[in-house]
């Protein structure tokens, strides 16, 4: 439509027609739209074709609009222009379609999450509170999420950044290429598989050696290990991207001054790329904080407070949501929704801050 309006209409009509084909004016598009809407309401809402509700009416209106547009446009403008118009409309409607679930999730979250958004929720655990009791809160779950994500971040950041340094600065030949490839492949590992791996490796095989009773036990640390498995490739990948953006001239300048390579990396390359690296880390943390499946398998979940991540079951917000949602009572689901609202707020906060931070980087990305 913009291209249509920007082309100046020449005063001599015959010449214009000779140079380019006729075009539908804007009012014709509006008219087709209105006609399609009226027709759809008449067909589906008034005449009740196919038990029409509002959704069907809307979908029908869009379909009628597309058909009408393609017919009228191909008569006036020709077949190719008609295809172009239909494709453009479809592309824009795909966008609107995708916003529907986003808006719906947000509205549902705010609506249902509001009911238990009170002091009790943030200051209490679920100790001695069954599914049939009101009250109760997610204090223990919030602490658990923060501890697990925090420990996972502490393990991931040095290893992930160092791995990226290897890939970009030191890696040569087959090993480096293999590592690069498998970092990418590993970003797609399902979270439940990471959970099962830590279950098989840490909980069932290692943890019996750590306890006095020689029984396997769950812990928040095991959950952090599973989150580490999930975060490592993401952090490595995003750090690698940022390190590659650092101009080679900066490194060369440093080398020319006789500075050792490792010092160049630590003092020149990393500080230059820092905002981008931090952004990548925060996005990975946001992703990990919302994971349910691995935590469910290896931390187990508990209604009680357990601030010691190295021993005993620990709750996390996502596991709390899962547990409370399973309780088919009046009190369970509202708690789950409020916890979901808290979790989304936490995750979105991290994401938005990370994205804002990424704008501060001086490296131009593409």
């Amino acid at each position, binding site marked *: 439509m913009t291209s249509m309006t920007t082309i100046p209409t020449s005063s001599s009509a015959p010449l214009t027609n000779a140079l380019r084909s006729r075009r539908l004016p804007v009012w014709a598009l509006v008219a087709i739209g209105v006609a399609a809407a009226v027709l759809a309401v008449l067909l589906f809402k008034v005449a009740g074709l*196919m*038990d029409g*509700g509002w959704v069907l009416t809307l979908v029908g209106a869009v379909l009628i609009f597309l058909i009408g547009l393609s017919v009228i446009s191909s008569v006036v403008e020709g077949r*190719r222009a008609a295809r172009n118009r239909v*494709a*453009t409309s*479809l*592309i824009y*409607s*795909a*966008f609107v379609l*995708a916003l529907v*679930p*986003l808006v*719906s*999730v947000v509205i*549902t*979250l705010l609506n*249902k999450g509001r009911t238990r958004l009170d002091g009790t929720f943030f200051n209490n655990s679920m100790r001695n509170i069954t599914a049939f009791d009101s009250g109760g809160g997610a204090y223990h779950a919030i602490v658990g999420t923060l501890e697990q994500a925090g420990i996972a971040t502490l393990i991931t950041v040095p*290893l992930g950044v*160092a*791995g990226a*340094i*290897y*890939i*970009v600065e*030191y890696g040569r030949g087959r090993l480096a290429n*293999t590592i690069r*490839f*498998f970092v*990418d*492949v*590993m970003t*797609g*590992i*399902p979270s*439940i*598989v990471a959970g*099962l*791996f830590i279950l*098989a*490796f840490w909980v*069932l095989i290692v943890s019996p050696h750590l306890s006095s009773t020689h029984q396997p036990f769950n812990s928040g640390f095991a959950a952090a290990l599973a989150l580490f498995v999930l975060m*490592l490739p993401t952090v490595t*990948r995003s750090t690698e991207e940022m390190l590659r953006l650092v101009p*080679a001239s900066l490194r060369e300048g440093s080398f020319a001054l006789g500075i050792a390579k490792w010092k160049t*990396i630590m003092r020149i390359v990393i500080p230059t790329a820092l905002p981008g690296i931090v952004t990548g880390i925060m996005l990975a943390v946001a992703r990990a904080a*919302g994971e*349910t*499946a691995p935590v469910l*398998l290896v931390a187990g979940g508990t209604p009680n407070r357990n601030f010691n991540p190295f021993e005993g079951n620990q709750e996390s917000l*996502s596991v709390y*949501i*899962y547990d409370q*949602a399973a309780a088919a009572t009046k009190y369970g689901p509202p708690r789950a929704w409020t916890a*979901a609202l808290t*979790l*989304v707020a936490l995750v*979105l906060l991290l994401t938005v801050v990370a994205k804002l931070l990424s704008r501060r980087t001086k490296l131009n990305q*593409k």
Partner: protein
Amino acid sequence: MSQPSFPGSAEAASAASADSPNDLTVQDDTRAVDIPRHRSGGRGPVAPMGGGGALPPKRRFGAESVFRWFTTGAGTIVLVIIVAIAIFLIVKAVPAIKADKANFLTHFEWFPNDPTDPKFGIASLAFGTVFSSAIALVLAVPVALGIALCLSHYAHKRLANGLGFLIDLLAAVPSIVFGLWGRDYLVDPVRQLSGWLHKYFGWIPLFGSDGPYGKSILLGSLVLAIMVLPIVTSLSREVFRQTPGMNEEAALALGATKWEMIRMAVIPYGRPGLIASVMLGLGRALGETIALALTLGGGWAVGSDIIHDGGNSIAANIANGFGEANDIGRGALIASGLVLFAITLIVNMIARAIVYRRREFIGSAV
């Protein structure tokens, strides 16, 4: 900084400076041309090769080599983890598969917790996993490609940035929240939709069931589609953006409409990247756990019907069945996780291999 007392050196320097830009540009040109064809992986800037006569000798255990070994070790961890996942899952799965009284690959039901007669097989779970993911992709990919085109070629740049951010937010919402939303909110519209589909399109095998409706594969796939939408969108947006402007302008100059330009220049150029992004979305859908655990009805039925209550997947079965699993049951779930790991690993490796053959499609999107 001119040094008139050494005319010879100044001359040499000027000669060098006259030469070097030339060299540099030649180098840059070859690099720019070569990158798409060769493996350019892991190449940082080339370290300057000094004469070395006056330089201190390389120390065996200096900071440089320690740093180098640390980063190499960190890079190798990724490979170690992938191998370790396979080993530990196999170690824990083998005893359970040995105890299985039915054929693990072809049996349909999953009753591993029976102390005397454990019988379980992956067949219906694997079917459900692939089936629900396939439907999710059928629903999500057209919309995702539409949005990606909208963001890369249709919407105004500033608007596209904002809308792209919204799509990224959709990606940041944890899967448990989508699962909860699907189970508590989306289930009613889907129930109505299922009845409507059966009434008017019941002759299609997909909609053959006459109820009960609700927590069906359709619901699970819809939620799954919403969850893979952002990843497919952001990857294919990167792919579309990489299209050379020359190709687009050439198409337009030949008189192509915008849609024809996209079909002739943008899509063929990006086809490998699009295939890869769809496969990465498939990998994500196959491994999705908690959203499906909440939205699928369960059971072991295998059929083409998608609107009847029921449906199951490997990952959802692990999350739902883990709580009451005994020793054999846990091993059985780990065995199913091993199958899932193998499937997603293969899908991801194929996708990444496609991307690696056309290096230019590596975007910053994960």
